[in-house]
């Protein structure tokens, strides 16, 4: 077989003539999104105050490093003796190796239900039997998509949104995401009018909408959906007969004074059809354990739960991790202390960081939660366009050596907004970050005119 010289075939033909799936070909291509490029660059040359002071400061990954000392202390006090000794301890290794239920052990579900309830202020009770545990929130989202939509269907998603949704929803399911644009004029709040418009527009093009994908608290903006808005969304969903997926993974990362209201809480109080609501949660943000891979699908729909349970065979939580977490989450005293301290430190970092940006005449959207702030750098970009935004992003990354996530990667309709995660920093790093931003945009006149 002779090799074709056609350039369009070069990529797929670069490995002999063995064809692979079209899905794989598109996924295997190098990441073009600045979200991923920035992450890679930061991890290749990571900043360290002492050993690599010229490295790239990572502000593009929403990781919470503020309370590791607490968890480490818990580990040293609890992990040491439990394994070797008492067989009745939760951390014993008996039965740890055998097949566990794919959707998680009842012990962990119970512990998770309690934890989720706690971090949401005790306003909701979660039923362990309505829980399906997955290896992180990433497969939780994908699994739900497989359960709720067919190939070619779509979900409405308010923008700006977490870049990972493009992967979680679209990679393998064949489901599309239709953006519902939110604007800075109302602090990126979602409106039913916008939902309705997007719904009708999509339907005209012949695509079936199966649901709405929300993140509440929102990522990257950090704002909350009010109780009224939750009612409005549920009404809308009922009217259009579609599902609602509420990704509440940042519910325990509150720093503002507003009250977080879970979709589950609203369902409890009014007579809404619970069968269309599904909540996603995980331990990657609130408990800083992304490496342990623990996610939750919480649903009121028995059929969805039945299907999701079967699908967890592809993404179960590892047994030793389940054991460890049952123990940790059941330690009420520790969890209480952790939640309180985390909130305090989060509030502190947020205040310092936002004030620091303000000093550079960079204002942030109003937010109450998350591990990041949504910063308006539109005055610093050369042209009010995605191109201008990406130029600034590039300058910040390669000249300023800080990685932030540009709004275009989050499908924001207004250029110039950037997500800056501040929970990977220590207080001493903040002046360094601010100085680097200042240096990178030195020639931009607006900074010098700080009011």
């Amino acid at each position: 077989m002779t090799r074709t010289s056609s350039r369009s075939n070069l990529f797929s033909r670069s490995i002999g003539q063995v064809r692979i799936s079209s899905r794989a070909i598109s996924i295997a291509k190098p990441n073009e999104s600045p979200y991923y490029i920035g992450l890679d660059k930061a991890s290749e040359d990571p900043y360290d105050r002492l050993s690599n002071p010229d490295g790239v400061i990572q502000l593009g990954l929403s990781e919470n490093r503020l309370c590791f000392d607490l968890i480490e202390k818990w580990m040293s006090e609890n992990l040491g003796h439990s394994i070797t000794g008492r067989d009745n301890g939760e951390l014993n290794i008996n039965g740890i190796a055998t097949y566990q239920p794919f959707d998680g052990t009842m012990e962990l579900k119970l512990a998770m239900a309690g934890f989720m309830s706690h971090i949401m202020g005790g306003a909701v009770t979660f039923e362990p039997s309505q829980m399906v545990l997955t290896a992180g929130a990433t497969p939780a989202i994908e699994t739900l998509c497989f359960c709720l939509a067919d190939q070619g269907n779509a979900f409405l998603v308010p923008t700006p949104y977490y870049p990972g949704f493009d992967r979680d929803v679209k990679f393998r399911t064949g489901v599309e995401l239709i953006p519902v644009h939110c604007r800075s004029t109302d602090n990126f709040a979602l409106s039913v009018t916008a939902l309705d418009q997007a719904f009708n527009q999509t339907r005209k093009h012949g695509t079936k909408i199966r649901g709405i994908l929300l993140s509440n608290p929102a990522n990257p903006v950090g704002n909350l959906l009010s109780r009224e808005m939750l009612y409005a969304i549920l009404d809308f969903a009922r009217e259009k007969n579609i599902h609602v997926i509420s990704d509440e993974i940042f519910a325990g990362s509150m720093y503002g004074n507003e009250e977080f209201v879970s979709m589950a809480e609203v369902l409890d109080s009014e007579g809404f059809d619970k069968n269309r609501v599904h909540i996603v949660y995980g331990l990657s943000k609130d408990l800083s354990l992304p490496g342990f891979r623990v996610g939750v699908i919480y649903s009121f729909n028995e059929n969805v739960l039945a299907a999701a349970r079967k699908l967890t065979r592809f993404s179960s939580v590892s047994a030793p991790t389940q054991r460890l977490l049952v123990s940790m989450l059941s330690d009420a005293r520790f969890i209480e202390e952790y939640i309180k301290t985390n909130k305090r430190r989060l509030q502190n970092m947020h205040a310092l960081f936002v004030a620091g940006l303000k000093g550079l005449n960079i204002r942030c959207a109003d937010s109450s939660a998350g591990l990041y702030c949504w910063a308006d750098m539109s005055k610093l970009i050369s042209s009010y366009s995605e191109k201008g935004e990406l130029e600034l992003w590039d300058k910040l990354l390669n000249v300023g050596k800080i990685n932030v996530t540009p709004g275009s990667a989050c499908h924001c309709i207004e250029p110039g907004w950037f997500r800056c995660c501040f929970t990977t920093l220590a207080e001493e790093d903040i002046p360094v970050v601010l100085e680097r931003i200042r240096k990178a945009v030195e020639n931009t006149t607006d900074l010098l005119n700080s009011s």
Partner: protein
Amino acid sequence: MLSSKASSNCHGQDSLYFLGWQVYEKNPFHEVENPTGIIQMGLAENQLSFDLVESWLRKNPDVMGLKNKDGESVFRDLALFQDYHGMPAFKNELVEYMAKIRGNKVKFDPNNLVLAAGATSANETLIFCLADPGDAILLPTPSYAGFDRDLKWRTGVEIVPIHCSSSNGFRISMFALEEAYERAQKLNLKVKGVLITNPSNPLGTTMTKDELQSLITFAIDKDIHLISDEVFSGTVFDSPCFISIMEAAMDSNLKRNTDVLSRIHIVYSLSKDLGLPGFRVGMIYSNNQTVVSAATKMSSFGLVSSQTQYLLSYMLANKKFTSNYMKRNQKRLKKRKEMLVSGLKKSGINCLKSNAGLFCWVDMRHLLCSNTFEAETDLWKKILCEVGLNISPGSSFHCSQPGWFRVCFANMNQSTLQVALRRIKDFVERSSFNYQQNMGSLSRKLISNWVRKLSSADREEQER
């Protein structure tokens, strides 16, 4: 309101399993507390050597405590580690361990290894990478029933069986391969690959170098992929020794075709030989860089917990432990298998000659009242309810001939196996030449309950 995938029944073909499990769960055998209960012989799990793993875990409390050799906590790094490339130290140990199982006749590159949450996830991911919806994979029967879900369900890919028969010990003949390929063509299905399980589940046999090379030649000839699910490679307890597809591909004749390595992919996991299915550690090994790249990104949907990666990288780094484990585990498996085989022989029941696996492929054709699958199902029900053994009927492995059963031996202790053997002996003696179905009223009641429950069964089975 649900997607068509979620409402489809394509995962429900193994309804006999649901029933078997349900009956077992209602009345599980326990040596002391429930000696007349049902003995689980349908679960291909290796519980024979966990004491060795347990002893290592107990001797290394620091590792369990997420501390390194210097007693420093590595918790922070682990908590944040979610790199889909996997932990380098862990992958380095895995490739060494994999090579060791293959007698070090093959060397693996950790950069070609992609981690997954179990072989279940690895197999599905590979199919996503190699085939598009509507394409087909050829699969020799009898084969693991779970493949109907793992390979087809979310991928939209079809399975076309390669029929193997007892006439040649269920080996894959070139004739059967070609026949399956043609059948797929007639159905207008584009064949993208062949998936073999070597050592075989449910047969417990390993393939010869010639067989493997014939398969490779076939794959080259048809320009398709070859997936070798080698999850049982560490359970080979007897000769002939295990030959991996990779070793067969290293042959100089085949190597001349530079495409060879890019179309061969291995799936492995720590669930069978190391007996750690709960840990969810599986992997894909491929020399095809595009597959590795795509599979790596897809692994985000099933990453292995960093805590588990850390723990196991230490365990596998202990070469004395792995050598000792491999030796003793194989010895125990061999002994237990021989116990089952000789025990069954005493009851006039033969097994397919096997040298690997956690089960035997048992010939009960002579106990069927007719050479039909209905008779096989009747016999299965009788053995489940009257004899009290949950064994797996060949039909659930898509075997083309009725009368064969898979019986697992590695998930119970010796005395339990003896109880099982005694029960079979009694049963055979009772039945002798009486083929009348004499199900008690209890069994009849259970059956009508099953029929009702069939439509709403969502009981997950966890076996291979």
